[in-house]
């Protein structure tokens, strides 16, 4: 992965309240980047803008040289950027496996003619099913790989793992995760952090918004501190988190 994700002068306000004020960022091409900051700092808004769910008032986002600011979320996802949400999203009515299958990219059976005539669809579906099972196993949901395991019956932490499996199934190289370990048990927290480390080491770019500073210290290669819609620090965690004014802003 050589292309980098960046944004230039991104500003956004909601009903006159500024959520982002001229954010400039260049992310590394791989590794783990954590975005921290107090509530209302603009962390989620930044993720929403990078993934096309919100259009900024001004400024631009890029993958490499390509501008993505005005692309819809599905086209940005097709370029290899996917995300999870602060409020968990998955299809709870269906199986965990179906959720992961849904996430597989470029399926022939998803086109009208493919669905009707099914040329090569059975074979593709079989392969995707294998991949989906492997992915569920790789995130530690090996026990939920049958059709009868409804996603809605998984615990909150397990659903967070499922949403990660879905992101991986899209074959995206950049994952933007909104509070991936918030509200999960200590055991699940370790499991998720370990997974993030593995993915970061495999050459993916993981950007995650987090309030848990110790988790940030544990896994992040870079940390971005935001406050009142601005980036107030960007660097390695040991330096950024050691600056007293940063921690003061965070606690305030």
């Amino acid at each position, binding site marked *: 992965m050589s292309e980098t994700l960046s944004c230039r002068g991104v500003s956004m306000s909601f009903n006159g309240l500024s959520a982002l004020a001229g954010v400039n960022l260049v992310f590394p091409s791989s590794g783990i980047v954590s975005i921290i900051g107090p509530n209302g700092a603009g962390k989620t808004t930044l993720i929403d803008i990078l993934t096309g*769910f919100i259009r900024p008032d001004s400024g631009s986002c890029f993958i490499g040289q390509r501008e993505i600011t005005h692309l819809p979320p599905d086209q940005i996802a097709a370029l290899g950027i996917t995300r999870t949400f602060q409020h968990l999203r998955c299809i709870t009515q269906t199986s965990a496996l179906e959720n992961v299958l849904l996430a597989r990219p470029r399926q022939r059976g998803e086109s009208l003619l493919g669905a009707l005539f099914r040329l090569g669809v059975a074979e593709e579906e079989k392969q995707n099913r294998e991949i989906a099972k492997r992915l569920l196993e790789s995130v530690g949901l090996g026990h939920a790989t049958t059709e009868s395991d409804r996603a809605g019956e998984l615990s909150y932490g397990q659903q967070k793992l499922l949403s990660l499996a879905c992101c991986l199934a899209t074959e995206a190289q950049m994952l933007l995760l909104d509070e991936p370990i918030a509200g999960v048990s200590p055991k699940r927290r370790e499991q998720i952090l370990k997974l993030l480390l593995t993915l970061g080491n495999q050459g993916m770019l993981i950007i995650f918004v987090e309030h848990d500073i110790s988790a940030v210290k544990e896994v992040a290669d870079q940390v971005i501190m935001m406050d009142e819609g601005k980036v107030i620090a960007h660097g390695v965690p040991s330096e950024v988190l050691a600056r007293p004014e940063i921690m003061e802003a965070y606690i305030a």
Partner: protein
Amino acid sequence: MEYVSHLLVLAAIYTILVVSLDLLIGHTGIMSVAHASLFGLGAYTTALLAVHYDPPFIISIVPGMVIGSAMAVIISLASLRLTRDQFVLATFGFQSILFGIFENWVSVTRGPFGVSGIPHPRILGLTASSPPLMLILVSASALLCYAAVIRFARSPFGRVLRAIREDEVFAKSLGKATYRYKISAFAISGCIAALAGGLYAYYMTFIDPTSFTIMESILILSMVIIGGAGSRWGPLVGALVLVILPEGLRFLGLPDSVAGSLRQVIYGVLLIAIVIFRPSGLVGSFRLGR
């Protein structure tokens, strides 16, 4: 016998309509009250072709399906910018516009006088002139539509539709161009509804705008909800119950005027009872408006 076969033909035509609307409501989670207008579009196209040129069945039915599909695409394009609630109102608007065209474009549709003298359909040299023959034709069409919709629903395409129904934002985040799927679902739905219209025109040999009103749209919608949206047998059960149940009233010996009003009351009561006591419909599992 003719009476029973008449009821079955109607039930089969409604099954086609319900199956096509259920693809939107049950499978994709899009509510529309424009279905009778698409039904009408198919009916008028086929009827006018049949009356003026009397071509073989396929030649008169396919253009209606194409036009129904195209109109459905136009209607669905509006959905790209609207919320689901607003979209229902937009479909109401389209329903009114198309009804207005059926009623007022007198030079083509003959307006309130309707199109009469529609010849019997000809297929492979055979003419379906009696109700039993029509029943075979309509049932075969219903079966085909039913199988096609189930085939769509059980494919990866159907999986995306269900994802849109459950959580469109999630589907988008996984790279699904949800608007394209919604347009496709609408196109299939409009195509099938127009087919039902063509069959209806052939069967009745006379059509006028009163068969394609908003009330008709709501009747089809009621069948979807009463049967069970998004379920395998729901469309069939919904269509059968609402076609046959009112007919049962005839045997109560009520005067026609009372029976007509009673029919409306029964729809109303049934609909309210289902929504309160069995929100997933008689044989469904998916609850609307969860």
